């Protein structure tokens, strides 16, 4: 505890780096995956290919991926960009599947009704399909968020500073307190992100609350529930 109080500034600066390194891939992953998922849900033939590509990308182990990226995209080994690119790849890989499921679950009858009511294709996609797919998209994004926050710490091994640096530093100095504080801070970030996502979901989709199967579970239990169904 005294170590923490003495090093609050250091832990805080690592927390900010951790937040930055995880927020960018989560947002990018969502923005990239949603159109791909929308496309996959409408084209049966390419759906299998897109989904299996996602599944293969998700199979890549993180540390090796961080290390081969410099050879492929020309960054330096210590560049935080390697971590951001790799985590964006994972985020897209997870999110494409959720997005495909989300859009595929929108009833064709509703789409026909929207077209009949005079929606143009683009208006229909944004005004009808996106809101209806929203709750499932949100569920996928929450999985992405937790997994990304946890994976960022591996970046410390290649010298990209974040809360994971407390693990490597604590290990080198044989100092358990530092590691435990790093673990707690990482879990807190994941929880805060999750609460933010739930809040944004409630604001953007006030109608979805009643439909969520989990609405009688408290948020913390939902958090664990989802984790246990998520891939590492």
């Amino acid at each position: 505890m005294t170590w923490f109080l003495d090093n609050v500034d250091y832990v805080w600066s690592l927390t900010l780096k951790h937040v930055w390194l995880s927020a960018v891939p989560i947002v990018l992953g969502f923005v990239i995956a949603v159109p791909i998922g929308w496309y996959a849900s409408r084209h049966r033939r390419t759906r299998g290919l897109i989904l299996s590509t996602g599944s293969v990308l998700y199979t890549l182990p993180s540390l090796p991926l961080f290390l081969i990226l410099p050879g492929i995209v020309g960054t330096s080994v210590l560049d935080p960009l390697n971590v951001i690119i790799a985590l964006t790849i994972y985020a897209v890989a997870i999110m494409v599947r959720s997005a495909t499921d989300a859009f595929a679950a929108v009833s064709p009858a509703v789409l026909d009704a929207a077209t009949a009511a005079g929606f143009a294709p683009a208006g229909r996609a944004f005004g009808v399909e996106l809101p209806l797919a929203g709750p499932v998209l949100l569920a996928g994004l929450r999985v992405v968020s937790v997994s990304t926050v946890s994976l960022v710490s591996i970046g410390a091994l290649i010298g990209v500073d974040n809360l994971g640096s407390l693990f490597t530093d604590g290990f080198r100095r044989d100092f358990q307190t530092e590691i435990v504080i790093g673990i707690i801070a990482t879990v807190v970030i994941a929880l805060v992100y999750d609460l933010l996502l739930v809040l944004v979901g409630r604001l953007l989709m006030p109608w979805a609350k009643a439909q969520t199967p989990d609405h009688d579970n408290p948020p913390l239990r939902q958090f664990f529930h989802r984790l246990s169904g998520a891939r590492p």
Partner: protein
Amino acid sequence: MSVLSETVDWLTDGDNWSGDAGIPHRVVEHLGYTALTVAIAAAIAIPLGLYIGHTGRLRGLAIAVSGALRALPTLGVLTSILLITGIGLKPSIIALVLLALPPLLAGAYSGLEAVDRSTIDAARAIGMTETQILTKVEVPLALPLIVGGIRSATLQVVATATIAAYVGLGGLGRYLIDGLALSDYPRMAGGSVVVIVLALVLDAVFVALQRLAMGGRATVESAAQS
């Protein structure tokens, strides 16, 4: 361009393919850790998962524990455990086992939960005992998801064992961690390529196993991601 060709040189250098620090030996080591870890974790998690799935008891607890385990950053768990136990093969394997439990547990209980209730009721109605229902109805029907859990756990252990080289474990992670320490890019990139190929090959093996477990039912992809 030069980093790429240096990596290819490293991978094709005969010296890197022989001896205790050679690629074949490291691959065998890595597969050995993975097999040992998954076997121990499966021996714990699968019977437990079957019990939870069959009886519905302890479900909340299992979800909370495996969820909490998953939220923890793996590097933090590894370094924390190894500081307590001291470095070595046994402590590393214990840490890897701990991290492999959640996907195996989830595969087993969600597999049983996905079995149609009316099928189980029918089995009970024709006079099967609880043990028969479990072994002859639930487990065969849940097999694709159970294998899916083993697949997730295996791939996770392959990845985490690589990271565990940081806390002293052998295997392919040595190339990455030692390469990083020596700023030897060809070594870390070459080692990374070998780990990635290993992961992809293992994944393909499990896709085939899941297809076998499906026994012609539906498609394998629906079970693959669970």
